[in-house]
């Protein structure tokens, strides 16, 4: 399935956000996920389905002034 991850089209084998996070090998703790401009809380990652064309933003807090 092709989705847009951080602005780039990608074909991913994941059906849910939890699967995508695991597929990408990301640490959940630091991650903020926005799906089609809606924040998805970590508890909801396993049941949040991905659909072709979804726009996903994978964000994290970093140092800044």
């Amino acid at each position, binding site marked *: 399935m092709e989705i847009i991850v951080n602005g780039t089209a990608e074909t991913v084998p994941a059906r849910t956000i939890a699967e995508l996070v695991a597929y*990408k090998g990301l640490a959940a703790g630091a991650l903020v996920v926005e799906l089609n401009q809606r924040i998805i809380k970590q508890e909801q990652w396993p049941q949040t389905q991905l659909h072709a064309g979804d726009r996903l933003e994978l964000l994290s807090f970093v*140092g800044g002034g």
Partner: protein
Amino acid sequence: MTTDDALQLGGVRFTNRLFTGTGKFAANARIPEMLAASGSQMITVALRRIDAQAGQENILEFIPKGVTLLPNTSGARTAEQAVRIARIAREAGCGDFIKIEVITDMKYLMPDNWETLKATEVLAKEGFVVLPYVLPDLPLAKRLENAGAAAVMPLGAPIGTNRGLETRPLIEQLIENCTVPVVVDAGIGRPSQAAAAMEMGADAVLVNTAIATAADPEAMGRAFDLAVRAGRIAYLARLAEESSLARASSPLTGFLDD
């Protein structure tokens, strides 16, 4: 005199008027050391797309509970983007404080006051504690106040330049005329400059680069804390007047022969 000299901002009582930032530290582990040494009670963080190549430390884990998070909207080029970043930060559990930073000029990193005002209008209505980072401009500051900003944060000099209070006369206008706190943000490079900002009546200062890139950020954090306290106490004590002529501090009579 200074026993209850706390700064109230967004329902939070700050007994330390040095706000700090998390940018540019050599390692995240330096951040809690700096916070402990400086006593700073508010610290900025930024939000970015993940970098798969970079480490995945969670910077929030390096900020002790009890220190108020001030997410910034850095990276925003428009009011709309700043609003979106603010909403994400709040949803992600960072609280209601937001530093609005909208920058379209990449050479001097001057804040875009117009976009910043638009973002302030939206976010204040949504219950955010809005701290807009601006070029000091009195009419704009009054508009920000009317829009519901919790403070105004004028720059002393461009971000990261360590040049101090280049905009001093303009910041003085804000201090004289604003009803919300004035926090001098950006450009402060030395503790003496932070003290000068506090002496002239700033309510707080925000310092990142000067602390984070010092050889010893922990010690520099302590130095800034002392400077901010000294400047604040001096302001409250009312500075003595300047004079163009000397005014003797000892009696002018001769000691023996008169």
